[in-house]
């Protein structure tokens, strides 16, 4: 049982959720409330990671963040090591490929806030931030939370992109999914089965939590 790899996966999922939480709230809210030219393009961009094969995504991310890229070079100058093949590089890639998982449910959550309720909040003297905190989030939070849970679960299982952008460096980028693959290649079926079981349990748990939360959100608004 590669505890280090599990810890790494959980850590990656945690940091991804942390970064995406404000993104989901603000971008999800913005997309829910505004209609503008080019909105379709923005939404398509957000969904893109869902429809692209992980290897394609991984490839583009490698090119975008790699040693030859401006981003990669700037990072290396600042921190002394490459962005790719590092944990931080995985976080960056993970944030990008989880965009649809985080933003879509949050957007739906905010779309469910009735327009009149938002208008009433403004008429009560609440600034947009006050309205967000006191009126909108209390109503939209199940959507936001679903987004975070999905992001967490998806990150735990992600393989192709993590392998491309991270390599399989023990303690740095060898997540549990990659570790399982590694065990199989080493013909350690028992080890692979054990880790797969743990990953399955965690994933099932998060999915069950999501369904429970959605049901709860449905009840509270009816």
């Amino acid at each position: 049982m590669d505890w280090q790899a599990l810890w790494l996966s959980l850590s990656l999922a945690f940091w991804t959720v942390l970064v995406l939480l404000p993104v989901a709230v603000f971008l999800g809210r913005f997309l829910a409330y505004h209609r503008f030219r080019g909105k379709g393009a923005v939404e398509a961009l957000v969904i893109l990671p869902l429809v692209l094969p992980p290897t394609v995504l991984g490839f583009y991310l490698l090119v975008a963040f790699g040693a030859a890229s401006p981003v990669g070079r700037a990072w290396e100058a600042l921190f002394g090591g490459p962005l790719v093949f590092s944990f931080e590089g995985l976080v960056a890639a993970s944030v990008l490929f989880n965009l649809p998982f985080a933003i879509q449910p949050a957007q739906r959550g905010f779309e469910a806030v009735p327009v009149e309720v938002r208008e009433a909040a403004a008429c009560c003297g609440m600034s947009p931030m006050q309205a967000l905190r006191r009126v909108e989030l209390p109503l939209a939070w199940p959507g936001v939370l679903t987004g975070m849970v999905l992001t967490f679960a998806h990150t735990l299982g992600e393989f192709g992109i993590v392998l491309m952008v991270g390599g399989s460096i023990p303690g740095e980028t060898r997540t549990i999914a990659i570790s399982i693959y590694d065990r199989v290649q080493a013909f350690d079926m028992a080890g692979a089965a054990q880790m797969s079981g743990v990953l399955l349990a965690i994933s099932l748990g998060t999915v069950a939590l999501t369904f429970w939360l959605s049901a709860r959100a449905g009840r509270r608004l009816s």
Partner: protein
Amino acid sequence: MPLPRRHFLTSAAAFAALPARAATAPVIAAAASLRFVMADLETAFPDALRVSFGSSGTLSQQLRNGAPFELFLSADEAYVQGLAHDGHLPDDGVIYARGRLSLIVPKSGDMEADATLDALEARLTAGHLRRFAIANPEHAPYGIRAREALIHRGLWQGLQPFLVLGENVAQAAQFAVSGNADGGLVAASLASAGPLAARARSALIAEDWHSPLNQRMALTPRAGTVARTFFDFLQSNEARAIFARHGFAAPEPA
């Protein structure tokens, strides 16, 4: 002066407080065929190492893109030489071992481990062949040699519809013994290793059936003291003995 980037991410959250994360253990890139021999080499070596296995081609690509490897053990010469030529390596290192190709057949199957490949041919002609696994001859060193051997034996064309290609030679070995294939041509170092030997029979393919598998290794620009020490260790007699135990031949005298 590089910022302590690891600190702000790792110390902030309990999650990221990983024990063996010390930047001291160097990362070694090793070809898939070295999977089992590396374990013994690491045990014999006093310092901690972190090994990343993969196909030589993939590891080479990763190095080009800035992977923080300090030593690269490839399964052939071309990749190391290519990297050196393009300036990603300070030099093209040394040959550390000579690899061998083996035929491998699952014990659960009924094909013989016949190094002449007569059994394979018989099966093919009789129409009983299901699948045969090799590493991808487009980029994997052992795959390239497997194709050469099969061409030499006149079986390459005939086997086309039955071939299953592994991304690296370890994956090919997996397919070969999975029970869904009749067998495969893989690295001898893998075929003779414990887990595989338990479930498969193997036979060495004659060396003159393919071009030599001179496996080259080189230190990268990032190489630190430990990596350099390991580099030297791998050329020692002790290391040579370990390689030999795992089915590698010694490098021919330069």
